[in-house]
């Protein structure tokens, strides 16, 4: 199916999210859509899949003008989107989730087609699995199979490699190539250049709501893509790692067993020194979250103690700041503004609000947050919410725990966040973070802890590691030699 867009416009208030977009996507190809956060990629895809109504402009399917603007029409035409958080029903089985909303085919046929597509695409899915028991990667696979069974001709994938394992990424890429070989069209939205390089036939670059490169045939150098994305070329400066100090540790675990309802970690013997950035490496779900809960004092070990500054940690400690991955649910109060959050942090219930306003204005400048002090945080983009959470860490914090600190952020925002964290480290705070991105761990950590098979390695100096060596450890190769 041939999809083209002419002069498409969409604004949200004063923000022109998409301006005069004109583009055509040939069938049977994977088209990369590249751009930094807020470039307008998601808006364009939501216009195509009928979630948003365009302000003006037209969409042509096989040369015929169509009116989109509701998902129902997009479904009828055959355009389907797999979101970053797949839109499925957790309590449903895979089969029910796929059947929901379809009149045809019968359950038996759907069951057969699930098996067929699972084999063809290499997705290990079973029709009777519950959606809530699946990982994000598997849910994404279900969505792709669902769209295929529903008869979609155009599949839109929005940042699909976020939060899924390397094996799932490989399976996804192979599957997408199989799918386009049957004449379908894939639109692949990402901000990762590597993915465009290995996967896409063409790349389209968006910057600030406008097209800056349309249908560029691959291969294109990374430098050229970066220039198109940012208008200037950026390099990652290599930050020298700090040596591991030997003075009194920030956190101390001695023969400690950590546990939650699903996971047991330990026994652990670890000293985490002051003034370091420590990366937690490991496959997602290897116990990093349990570990952080215990270091934050919000969970208590089954055996032994977690000591913080020499004191046993028995409850959440104001000197430890924790930035969870699920920002809107656990991190911030979406309906409240930054200045209200600043007021929440104050010691006195009766302190004047005047200072808070000044302080908020200062934080907005320091952390380059695109917001006014009185804007509810839920209206901010992901990157700005992350910066806001960071800004709200009290100056007094001596321990900072971060889950995926730069997930979903563009390169510039990520660098800005790391600069702030390095300042905190230099002031003596110990920063722990986990990230699915090994190069981020290698770039910014002073030392690394590897999580594997319910155990944690000893603290490894980053300079003693290479990215390849770290990848091997995460997979368990040579883990025995470094385990504590």
């Amino acid at each position: 199916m041939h999809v083209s867009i002419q002069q498409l416009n969409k604004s949200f208030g004063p923000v022109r999210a998409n301006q005069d977009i004109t583009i055509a996507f040939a069938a049977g190809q994977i088209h990369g859509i590249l751009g930094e956060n807020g470039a307008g990629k998601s808006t364009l895809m939501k216009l195509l899949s009928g979630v948003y109504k365009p302000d003006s402009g037209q969409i042509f399917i096989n040369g015929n003008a169509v009116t989109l603007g509701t998902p129902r029409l997009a479904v009828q035409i055959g355009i389907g989107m797999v979101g970053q958080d797949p839109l499925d029903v957790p309590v449903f089985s895979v089969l029910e989730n796929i059947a929901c909303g379809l009149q045809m085919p019968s359950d038996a046929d759907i069951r057969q087609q699930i098996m067929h597509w699972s084999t063809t695409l290499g997705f290990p899915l079973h029709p009777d699995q519950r959606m809530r028991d699946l990982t994000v990667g598997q849910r994404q696979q279900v969505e792709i199979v669902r769209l295929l069974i529903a008869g979609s001709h155009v599949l839109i994938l929005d940042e699909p490699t976020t939060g899924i394992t390397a094996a799932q990424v490989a399976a996804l890429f192979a599957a997408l190539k199989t799918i386009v070989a049957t004449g379908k069209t894939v639109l692949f939205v990402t901000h990762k250049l590597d993915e465009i390089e290995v996967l896409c036939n063409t790349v389209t670059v968006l910057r600030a709501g406008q097209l800056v490169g349309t249908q560029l045939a691959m291969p294109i150098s990374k430098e050229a893509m970066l220039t198109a994305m940012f208008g200037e070329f950026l390099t990652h400066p290599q930050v020298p790692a700090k040596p591991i100090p030997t003075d009194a540790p920030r956190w101390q675990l001695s023969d400690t067993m950590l546990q939650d309802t699903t996971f047991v970690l330990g026994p652990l013997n670890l000293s985490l020194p002051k003034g370091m950035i420590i990366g937690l490496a490991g496959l997602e779900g290897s116990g990093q979250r349990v570990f952080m809960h215990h270091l934050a004092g919000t969970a208590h070990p089954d055996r032994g103690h977690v000591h913080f500054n020499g004191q046993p940690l028995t409850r959440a400690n104001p000197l430890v700041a924790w930035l969870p991955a699920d920002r809107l649910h656990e991190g911030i109060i979406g309906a409240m503004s930054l200045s209200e959050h600043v007021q929440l942090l104050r010691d006195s219930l009766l302190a004047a609000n005047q200072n808070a306003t000044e302080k908020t204005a200062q934080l907005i400048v320091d952390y380059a947050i695109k917001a006014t002090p009185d804007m509810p945080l839920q209206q901010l983009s992901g990157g700005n919410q992350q910066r806001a959470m960071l800004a709200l860490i009290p100056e007094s914090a001596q321990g900072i725990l971060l889950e995926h600190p730069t997930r979903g952020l563009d390169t510039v925002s990520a660098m800005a966040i790391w600069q702030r964290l390095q300042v905190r480290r230099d002031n003596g705070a110990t920063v722990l973070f986990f990230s699915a991105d090994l190069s981020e761990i290698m770039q910014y950590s002073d030392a690394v802890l590897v999580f594997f098979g319910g155990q944690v390695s000893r603290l490894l100096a980053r300079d003693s590691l290479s990215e390849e060596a770290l990848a091997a450890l995460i997979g368990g190769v040579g883990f025995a030699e470094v385990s504590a």
Partner: protein
Amino acid sequence: MNWTQLLTDIAAIIAVSAPLIIATMGIYLSERAGVINLSVDGSMLLAGMTGFAVAYTTNSVVLGFVAAALVGGLIAALIAYLGVSLRISQTAIGFVLALLCTDLSSFLGNPYVQQTGPAVPAWSIPGLTTIPVLGQLLFSHDAVIYLSLTLVPLIAWWMMRTRSGLIVRGLGERPDALFARGIDVIRWRYVMVIIGGVLIGLAGAAYTLDLKQGWTYRHMAGTGWIALAIVIFGAWRPWRILLGCYFFAALQTMASRLQDNSWQIPTQVLQVAPFVVMILVLAVVNSLGAPELQRWINRLPTPLRRMIRFLTSPAPAALGQPFIQQ
């Protein structure tokens, strides 16, 4: 206790539970689609009063039921408009309407207090009544009770086995996902809330024209609230809701039997006792789902753990939450 007495009691339980089953099924349909109709108690009173008044005036039981269904459906349509379209808090709307309809039923129903009107005729199913035990238990009742007996299997089958049932279940769990599949979430919610309201209205008339014939001030006040509680007890599963209805009806039957037995317990206590017991059971069952207890429950042997899991399944995830189209 002798055999005949037991049969009579069980038959009584089946009869007493009939309106409750119809009402809980109405609540179930609405809540599965994600909308709370908290007005049930008031709805049942107003619909029951209207049903009785219409039947009394026209001398037609059928017209009485039609009127009751209309009243229940209209109140539900109002709830859908305010809660689904205007996205006002469903809890607030429900409470206000419950109070309003209760008072309205007392005010408008004044002329019909203590009047004798038509009632649902008994209708033994020919041939089947002669079956020993079952004949007396199941087939010697009237149309309302037969409806209650067929409603649960029918709704359970529809909800669990059909594509439209699947859509309704999805509506209460994650409406965004259904919207993305091209389903008109708002329209489906309207339809389900109104069907639920119709059943709630019929349940009201089932009291005034059948189980507790006639009309008095606050004729069966309280049962609507119990019906809401039974749906929670039943964890939004039709067969468990049915179990809850029978359990409550059994408590009520037991209470009225104790009154005959010249015990020294005041009648008022016996009348209220089933409500208290039901709420206590609900509190105990629900507290089993508390996260503090999970760790402890996880250490129990598997069959016991399964049973607790079965008892504590969670509410539809999107229950009471308005759907906002992007």
